[in-house]
C-alpha cells in the first residue's frame, strides 16, 4: 500500500465529526427522550436474543410447556445433541463454502464493474446501472422456476452440474448481491480522489494496475462493507436454497428445519442450533461494523 493512499484513507476516516459538540449540557427533555427510547429499543432488541440464549440452555420440558423466564435448570445437552439430531456440521460446511465463495466472487466482480462505472464514460452505462438496479424489484418467486430450468439445461448442454450443486448456489447468490454491491462500491469509488489513479497511470501502471495498486487499497472499507453484505445474504437465503440443494449440498437455512420432527419440535435444540449458526455472522458483523460504517459513510450514503 502506498503511503499516499494510506494517507487518504486515514484522512477520510478522521474528517467526519464523530460527535456533536455542544457547549451546554443537553436539556433534560433530550436526556429523558434518549433514556426512554433507547431503553425501549434495548429491551426490544434484547428480549428475543435472551429467549434464544436462555432456551438453548433449558431442558426439553422447559421449552415444551409454559414459557418461563428463568430456566428450571441449565444444561448444555442441547449443544451436544444438535450435532446428532441433524447433520449440522455438514450443513454448516456447505453454508460456509457457498457463502465464502459467493462473497469472494461477488466482491471481485463488483469491484471491476464499479471501477468501470465510476471511472469511465461509456455507451450503455446508464442502461447498465438502471437494469442492474431494477432487478432488485423482481420477486424471487418469478424467476425461481426459470432459473432452475436454466441450470438444468446448462447442465445437460455442457455437463456442468449447476442444479443441486454448490456451484449453482454460489452463482445464484453472487448475482443476487451484485446490484447492491456495485451500487455501493460506485459510491465509494467516486469518493476516492481521481488524482490517485491518475498519478498511478502516469507512473506507468495500466488501468488495471492502477485499480489494484491504488484504488483497491484505498477502497478497503467499501469492499469490506460489500463483503459483509454479500456474506450475510448468502448465509441467510431460504427460498432458492430449498429448491436447489439436495441431501449432500443442503445449507443451514434448510437444514435447521430438521429439528422439528413428526413427534415434536426440539425448541431447545432449535435455539442452540440457531445460536451456533448465528455466531459467525453476528461476530463478523459486529467486528467489521466500524468498516461498514466507514464504507457506507464515504460511499452509498453520500
Amino acid at each position, binding site marked *: 500500500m502506498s503511503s499516499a493512499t494510506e494517507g487518504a484513507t486515514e484522512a477520510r476516516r478522521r474528517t467526519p465529526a464523530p460527535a456533536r459538540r455542544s457547549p451546554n449540557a443537553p436539556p433534560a427533555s433530550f436526556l429523558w427522550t434518549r433514556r426512554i*427510547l433507547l431503553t425501549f429499543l434495548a429491551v426490544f432488541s434484547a*428480549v428475543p436474543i435472551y429467549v434464544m440464549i436462555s432456551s438453548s440452555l433449558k431442558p426439553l420440558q422447559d421449552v415444551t410447556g409454559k414459557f418461563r423466564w428463568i430456566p428450571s435448570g441449565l444444561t448444555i445437552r442441547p449443544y451436544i445433541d444438535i450435532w446428532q439430531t441433524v447433520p449440522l456440521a455438514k450443513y454448516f460446511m456447505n453454508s460456509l463454502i457457498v457463502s465464502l465463495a459467493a462473497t469472494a466472487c461477488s466482491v471481485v466482480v463488483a469491484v*471491476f464493474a464499479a471501477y468501470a462505472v465510476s471511472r469511465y464514460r461509456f455507451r450503455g452505462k446508464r442502461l447498465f446501472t438502471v437494469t442492474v438496479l431494477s432487478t432488485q424489484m423482481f420477486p424471487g418467486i*418469478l424467476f425461481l422456476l426459470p432459473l432452475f430450468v436454466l441450470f438444468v439445461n446448462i447442465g445437460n448442454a455442457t455437463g456442468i452440474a449447476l442444479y443441486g450443486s454448490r456451484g449453482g448456489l454460489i452463482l445464484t447468490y453472487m448475482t443476487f448481491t451484485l446490484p447492491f454491491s456495485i451500487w455501493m462500491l460506485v459510491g465509494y469509488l467516486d469518493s476516492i480522489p481521481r488524482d490517485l489513479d491518475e498519478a498511478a497511470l502516469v507512473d506507468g501502471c495500466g488501468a488495471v494496475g492502477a485499480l489494484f495498486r491504488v484504488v483497491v487499497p484505498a477502497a478497503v472499507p467499501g469492499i469490506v462493507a460489500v463483503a459483509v453484505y454479500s456474506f450475510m445474504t448468502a448465509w*441467510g437465503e*431460504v427460498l432458492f436454497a430449498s429448491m436447489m440443494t439436495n441431501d449432500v449440498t443442503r445449507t443451514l437455512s434448510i437444514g435447521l428445519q430438521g429439528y422439528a420432527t413428526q413427534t415434536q419440535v426440539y425448541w431447545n435444540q432449535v435455539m442452540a442450533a440457531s445460536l451456533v449458526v448465528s455466531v459467525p455472522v453476528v461476530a463478523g458483523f459486529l467486528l467489521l461494523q466500524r468498516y461498514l460504517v466507514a464504507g457506507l459513510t464515504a460511499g452509498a450514503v453520500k
Partner: protein
Amino acid sequence: MTATETPSSAAPSAPGGGERGGPPARRGLRRFLSARIRRGGLPYLLLLPALVLELLIHLVPIAVGVVMSFRELTNEYLRHWGDAPWRGLDNFRVAVDFDGSVGAALLKSFGVTCAFTILAVGLAWVLGAGASILMQDAFRGRGVLRALFLTPYALPVYAAVITWSFMLQRDNGLVNHVFHEQLGLTDEPSFWLIGGNSFLSLVVVSVWRTWPFAFLIITAALQNIPRDLYEAAAIDGAGIWQQIRKITLPSLRPVNQVLLLVLFLWTFNDFNVPFMLFGKAAPEAANLISLYIYKSSFLTWDFGTGAAMSVLLVLFLLLVTAGYLLATSRKKRGADV
C-alpha cells in the same frame, strides 16, 4: 461527472468497444483502430463478468418468467413449456378482475402488503433515525448499545424468525406469558400466528429485523455532517432540539431518499419472514403479495397466472420507484442549486 478518458471519446461517437454497434463512420477508421480501442473496450471488459452473471442468473430467467405470464402453464404443460398454449393477456385479466375471486384475493393481498410496507418501513425509519440521532453524542455504554441494536440485523433471517415464532405461540409463548399471565392485559391468551393479530406480528418481526439497518445507515450519514455547522449553531444560541431540526434532519435528506427506497423495495418483496413465520398457508391478514404469488404458482400449479401477478407487481414497483425518484430528486436538485 468527470472521467479519466480523453475529451474526444465523450463525443457522440464514443468508441464502440464490446457492443455490436460497429465503428462509427464519421471518424476515420485509422483513428478508431488506435490504442484507444483498448481503452474504449476496457470498461466493457471490466463489466463483462457482472454483465454475464446478471444476464444469466437475473435477466434471462426474469425474461422467461415474463414469457410465462402469457402462457397457460398449468400442470399439464409443466414438462414441455414450449407446448403451453399462449393465453395473450388472459392471465393478467384473471389477476386484475377484482370481481373474480383470484383478483379480489390479489387486491386484498396487495392492500395488506401496502399497509404492512408503510407501517414497517415507517417504523423502521423512525426508530433508526431516532436512535442514531440520540446516540450521536458519546455516552457511557454507547458501543455496547450499538452492538446490541445491530445484532438483530446480523442474525440470519431463519434463526431470527424461528425465535419469534417460538415467542409468538399462543399456549407456550413469551408474548402471551407477558401480556396475559404477567401483566393481565388480556382476558384470554391471544393468537399471534393466526387470525387478525398475525398482521401485527409480521410488522413487529419485520421492524425488529430492519430498523437496525436504518440505524446503521443513518449513523454513518451523521458522521458526514461537518462539526462546524453545529458549532456555529450553538454559538447562535440554538438548543439541541433546534440543532436537530435545523441541521441534522435536513442533512439526512439525501440519505433518506435512498434508504427509504431500499427499505421499501425489500419490505414489499419480503418473502422469507412471512414464509418462515406462518408457513405456506399464511393467515389472510398477513398474506403478503409475495406469499400469495408463491401460493398461486406452486400450490395451485398455475405458473402462468403467478408470473402475471409478478409482472404486475414489478410494474407497480417500477412506477412507484420512478415517481418517487422523480419527485425527490427534483426537490433535491432544486435545493442544491
